[in-house]
């Protein structure tokens, strides 16, 4: 780890005022990890972990979750479990209890990719070092994305929480020098395109203060399914957060997002619309999954993800629709 200046912010205002050029540090599970292996090298670290941003409450038809709420706190919160079970399941499927105790919602929103090349300074990576090239493209691609890729980067987005939040239509509250704004979560993460080093739509010194998750009948039906190489403590090969509302055997409303397969959490509105009014059956869900995976660009080692993602989506939708025990 390079040496850096360490400061503690006493208030959100102070954090924003001195945030330019600094890395905000909360739980540290991602930032400290990447600093240790010198993938991220901030000269100044601003500790925001003691700010008063850890509240979780159900208010104005939405779950209002503070950016510093720990993953554990959110996952175990009664309102979250009732109103958005898929979010709780997604969080509990990620990392380990120790990491979830330290990791925060804000940090998880900004979680960096697990691409093995990004993490290995002995290889080239456009995300780590703009314009340096990408060794993953024709390398070991089993864990890489098949959706939203570019010829500069195929790194998969690693978060489980973000996938669930996306399916739940969450918005991210941020405050910066220019004031407060809300970003739909689908717009927080950027596609790699020609500039994989640009990962978030945040402006300098903008601090995530919280997340708003609208609560409705659909959210209450949300579920999360994750496929991985071992039973726990592993990143997703494919995952799906799904929410389906069924009336009289037909799909009233449905949303689903995919994880482990996109360069960002992945949602396809057309796929969701395709289920509208149709019978809540495997066929309907399979068709939606088919649409969602259109345009997938697999590489040598991750071709299986196309089929796996479809099956995972179907499983998620079936579960949410109550079509499985």
């Amino acid at each position, binding site marked *: *780890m*390079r*040496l850096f200046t360490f400061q503690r912010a006493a208030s959100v205002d102070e954090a924003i005022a001195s945030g330019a050029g600094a890395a905000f540090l909360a739980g540290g599970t991602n930032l400290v990890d990447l600093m*240790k292996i*010198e993938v991220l090298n901030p000269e100044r670290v601003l500790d925001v972990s003691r700010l008063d941003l850890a509240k979780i409450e159900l208010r104005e038809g939405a779950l209002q979750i503070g950016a510093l709420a720990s993953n554990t706190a959110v996952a175990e919160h009664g309102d979250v479990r009732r109103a958005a079970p898929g979010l709780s399941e997604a969080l509990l499927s990620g990392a380990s209890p120790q990491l979830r105790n330290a990791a925060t919602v804000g940090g998880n929103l900004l979680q960096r990719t*697990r691409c*093995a*090349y990004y*993490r*290995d*300074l*002995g*290889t080239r990576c456009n995300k780590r070092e703009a314009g340096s090239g990408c*060794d993953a493209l*024709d*390398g*070991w691609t*089993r*864990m890489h994305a098949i959706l939203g890729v570019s010829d500069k980067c195929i790194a998969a987005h690693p978060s489980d929480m973000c996938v669930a939040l996306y399916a739940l239509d969450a918005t991210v509250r941020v405050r910066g020098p220019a004031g407060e704004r809300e970003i739909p979560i689908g717009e927080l993460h950027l596609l790699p395109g020609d500039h994989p080093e640009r990962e978030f739509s945040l402006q300098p010194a903008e601090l995530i203060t919280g997340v708003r998750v609208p609560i409705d009948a659909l959210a209450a039906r949300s579920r999360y*399914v994750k*496929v*991985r*190489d*071992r*039973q*726990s*403590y*592993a*990143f997703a*090969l494919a995952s799906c957060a799904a929410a389906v509302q069924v009336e009289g055997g037909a799909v009233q409303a449905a949303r689903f997002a995919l994880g482990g397969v996109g360069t960002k959490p992945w949602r396809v509105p057309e796929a969701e619309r395709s289920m509208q009014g149709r019978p809540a059956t495997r066929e309907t869900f399979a068709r939606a999954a088919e649409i969602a995976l259109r345009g997938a660009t697999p590489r040598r080692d991750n071709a*299986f*993800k196309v*089929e*796996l993602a479809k*099956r*995972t989506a*179907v*499983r998620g939708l079936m579960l949410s629709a109550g079509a*499985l*025990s």
Partner: protein
Amino acid sequence: MYSYEWPVPGILYGVLVTSNLAKGRITAVDSAAAEKEPGVIAVLTPFNAMKLPGGAKPDTGDRVVQVFQDDQILYSNQPVALAVADTFERALHAAALVRVSAQPLPFTVRMADELHAAFPHDIRNAAGSRPADQLRGDVETALRQAEHKVEAVYETPPETHNPLEPHATLAVWSGDRLTVYDATQGIFGVRKKLAKAFALPPGNVRVITKYVGGGFGCKGSAWSHVVIAALAAKQLGRPVKIALTRPQMFGIVGGRPQTQQKISLAADKDGRLIALRHESISTTSRFDDFIEPAALVSRHQYQCENVETKHRLVRLDIGTPTFMRAPGESSGSFALESAIDELAHELGIDPVDFRLKNYAETDPTEGKPFSSKSLRRCYELGAERFGWQKRTRRPELMLRAGKLVGTGMATASYPANYTKASALARMRPDGTVLVQSGAVDIGGGTYTVMAQVAAETLGVPYEKVRFDLGDTEMPEAPRSGGSTTAASVASAVEAACRALRQKLDAMGGRPRQPVEAFGEVAPSEERKKYALHSFGAQFAEVEVDPDLGMVRVTRLVGAFAAGRILNATLARSQFMGGMVWGIGMALHEHSVYDEKLGRIMTRDLADYHVPSHKDVVIVDPIFIPVEKDEIVDPAGVKGIGEIGITGAAAAIANAVFNATGKRVRALPITPDKLL
């Protein structure tokens, strides 16, 4: 106290810089930025490191090391420099600042590229030396004429041991005397290597290893960092300690080599094996020979007139592989026991019955009797415990909570190794006893078991005995590997204690002065007349998600017969650990190379998966408490550290076949292979 933790004032922290290239020549090392950092003492490189007095290649028959004596890069992640600082964080950062320039050279890490140059290599390990190839009968004709045949290629991937304690070495010089605290399975091997490297009499080198945080084979050799720690301490005139980072565990300190095994099996209509051919190819480095003796298991496992086994090596530009928990028997049993299952399935014979039909009463290759063999009993006990008779042959409809359920089994076996060992026993006037032997305890319970053996032999209470180990000042004992420690050291401890007992009896009771006796044992000639193995039977139940391909081993029962069991609790844990390794081998473990970079990319514990708590449900080892065997060694003990993994991966793969109808012949069985 683990090796990195010994308190030494004035200690310096060393962190290795390793190569990004897979092959090349180092042209320059720029350490200027690193050396400017606060607290950095030095950066050692091939250009400024001291020349080893013992010569550039301190080889002792142990693994070949790379210790800054030349400019060659022979594999990715090879040590090329060492950053030394007054704190760990400073050394770690300094290492990251070192820039190595090198002239790249062509390389390959892909087995297929070098198959044309595969060559036979004989097998040398704890059990002695065996020829690469062995042929008995006429396999070719038998295969041609057979009614029922299986011919298939089975593949096991490169794996990495990953003990939870990273390799660590702490070196302290005092004049021309060197003391090294090393995370090793064999202190005398480390001493030999260091004495050679620094041209010292072995007596000037002392190696101390009180606790080891897991070994599994990779700590059985003195690798590069061991010599580098001593070199740095010598050159800098201060004690130095080095621990490998987790990514540095991949390549520098060995791993299980990749294997490709072709099995040809034939049986007559009654289910009797008439031909067995097992051809194994495994990988090694360009500069050192390690062979995974995967086909050995086929030489003795089943009764068959026509048996051919072959071992081939291919050289790749990788770090040298090494023995990893049951080298040969683990990977080899996956191939053989899968093929046996395939043939049993084709014949429509129950897999246990098929194995019983082909039970070898004597070693089929050499015609020797087994010193003891209770495999039949293992099949019985295991099948009963597991509930094997309830098995369905066509389980496609067996769904439990939406999961396919399947069962499978396999035979387990591992050689009963035994080597020279010695021990010292001393009784003090107060009746307490100290027994010493330069063995190590890598988690198998050597401390406990040897104290127990000593107490029993001397006829004194266990509380009165202390067993100490892990110091080259003590009587020599073998490396803790190849499941040799219990058999060899227990025999030596018994010998020492018997000698002490005689002295005491002659004196007529408790001594007024401390009395000590030395015991040494070595394999007898008689032993060579027998085939010496432990045996067992593994039974697995799996649940497979029919859509998503995730496999969970819900139950693993192993029944073993391994001579005299010294301590039932510890033995159960050893068998259990081996079986859990079988789960990892079957479902998770794979060191994946980027073939273009020649580099292992699964270089941490998030990408290299070992089983987690959630992957291990019921693991249930049972064993025959006393399998009488007076041949194997004086203590009547067969090692138990490795047999638990043998057959386990095959039993699981066979269960997956039973559940899904899919035969996965290339490990690990990840979800993508079952879609």
